[in-house]
């Protein structure tokens, strides 16, 4: 066993490609997602239709444009002008105020504010509306407080991600993807390589039990994946200031669970593929794409068609992302995601059983 693990480490350290995947990938991904691919909104042109033009609407506008997310666009007067400005791409969102805004407010009526966003880019549109909503809600609150008592200007607070930083949302996703990649892909490829080179036969003829072979293969990757997870956490904490609000021990324990899950998935893939290419393709298409697309990492699960939502429930990363988001950003404990944890444990057992069964069939 010990020899086996040593040999496995030697394989990894001598292969430049695996070293790059193992240690270069986390660094590049975190920096890439952190700096470049952010879905933050900044300096977006927003136009205004303001027929009332009183102190309340002006105050709301000031709040909007002082937030730093929006730049003052045009002042528009009619529906046709709104459409035209969207078509010409001069703005991404238009805020339409009710007429006689302040007066309606004083009479106790609720005047309307309409937020019209350019949904040809749905993600941005969604974000813009959310930001603006938040800001207006904040103003609302300050208004109701000021009419009923001492004047306090409340802060707008975005829960869980006060700075609305994209990187906060990406880090859990990146950890998930990398653990999946390193654990599942690397093990499946390394087992497939032994099959391809014919060394697997020699191992199977030896007194080593299949379980020992698998354990020996997996052990180094457990360790390296764990180191990877920790280094991503450190990197994202010190470079981007991503917090770990919950228990660090719990976070690491859940990561360990997910690593074991991904490894058992990798072993399962290797039992159905006979060479490195097949293992690679299977991991890419069966693991990576669903991880990225269906886990809720980039596209919210709630926005998916129902069929894809069902499909996403069998994606292990979906549950793991929920768990680490809860721990890192919300700081909650096991009581809030024991169900997700159970799902992950169940999935792990299923994959281990399936691959042990597969392995035995192949031997007989």
């Amino acid at each position, binding site marked *: 066993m*010990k*020899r*086996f693990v*040593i*040999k496995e480490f*030697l*394989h990894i350290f*001598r*292969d430049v490609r695996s070293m790059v995947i193992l240690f270069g990938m986390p660094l590049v991904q975190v920096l890439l997602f952190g700096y470049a691919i952010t879905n933050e909104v900044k300096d977006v042109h927003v136009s205004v239709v303001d027929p009332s033009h009183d102190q309340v609407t002006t105050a709301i506008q000031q709040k909007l444009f002082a937030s730093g997310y929006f730049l003052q666009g045009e002042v528009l007067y009619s529906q046709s002008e709104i459409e035209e400005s969207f078509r010409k791409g001069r703005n991404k969102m238009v805020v339409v105020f009710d007429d006689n805004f302040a007066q309606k407010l004083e009479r106790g009526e609720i005047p309307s504010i309409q937020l019209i966003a350019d949904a040809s880019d749905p993600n941005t549109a969604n974000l813009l509306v959310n930001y603006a909503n938040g800001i207006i809600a904040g103003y609302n609150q300050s208004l109701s407080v000021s009419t009923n008592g001492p004047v306090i200007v409340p802060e707008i607070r975005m829960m869980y991600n006060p700075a609305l930083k994209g990187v906060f949302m990406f880090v859990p996703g990146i950890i998930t993807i990398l653990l999946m990649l390193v654990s599942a892909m690397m093990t499946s490829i390394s087992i497939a390589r032994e099959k391809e*080179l*014919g*060394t697997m*036969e*020699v*191992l*199977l*003829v*030896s*007194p*080593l039990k299949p379980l020992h072979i698998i354990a020996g293969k997996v052990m180094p990757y457990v360790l390296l994946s764990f180191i990877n997870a920790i280094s991503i956490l450190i990197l994202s904490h010190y470079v981007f200031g991503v917090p770990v609000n919950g228990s660090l021990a719990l976070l690491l324990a859940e990561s360990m669970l997910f690593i074991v899950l991904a490894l058992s998935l990798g072993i399962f893939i290797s039992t159905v593929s006979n060479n490195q290419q097949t293992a690679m393709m299977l991991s890419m298409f069966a693991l990576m794409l669903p991880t990225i697309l269906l886990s809720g990492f980039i596209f919210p699960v709630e926005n998916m068609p129902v069929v894809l939502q069902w499909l996403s429930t069998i994606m292990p990363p979906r549950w793991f992302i929920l768990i680490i988001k809860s721990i890192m950003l919300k700081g909650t404990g096991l009581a809030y995601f024991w169900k997700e944890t159970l799902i992950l444990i169940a999935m792990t057992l299923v994959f281990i059983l399936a691959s042990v069964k597969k392995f035995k069939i192949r*031997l*007989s």
Partner: protein
Amino acid sequence: MNNPETAIEAKDMVKQFGSFIANDHLTFSVYKGEIFGFLGANGAGKTTAIRILCGLSRPTSGEIRVAGYNVFTETEKIKKRIGYMSQRFSLYEDLTVSENFRFYGGIYGMSRTSIRKKTGEMLERLGITELSSTIIASLPLGIRQKLAFSVAIMHTPEIVFLDEPTGGVDPITRRQFWTMIYEAAEAGITVFVTTHYMDEAEYCNRVSIMVDGRIEALDTPANLKLKYKASNMNDVFLKLARNAGAGRE
């Protein structure tokens, strides 16, 4: 059926893949310390048989004992007592010579000191002591093959199975390789070797010739040549194969 003089005993060994019969009632025994040649054309069923004897594949039926143990129920005991070298290259190319020895010695449960001693002896015999920390990938094929054989017998097994060990190497290296096989046999290791080089058959104590999943002949090379009135093993083989072909048509 547990003769102390036999290393391998097979009686009516059958392996069926669906309707295809790869091994059709093979019956043979291999004596301790002999070099047993297992001959046949490509696809005659040699590899299937060797995989069964090594415990890699389960026979459909038959009564088979390897090193005195039943292949159905005692594969674990068999595995400790055999060595195996496959036709595909079986050393790790990205590891050095001594790392390969350490690994294979380790999985057979050899102690650190006996691995070191054995590695030194074997490299000395091959005259390549200076290559012990060279990566396998940078060594020529001939040396790799000799190393693979050394690794297969480093734990001094009772039987070593060689599945087409000399595929793709030049005649001189093949000659040297057979010298190593003789040395192993003299040291008391039973050698079970498959090949389709008929000149190699001459080096064996006894050979069996497989045609279409059946053993068509089994004797010493000299007796076979006499029986089939052939001047060399190649002719023996061609005559057998032609008969089989005629019988089918």
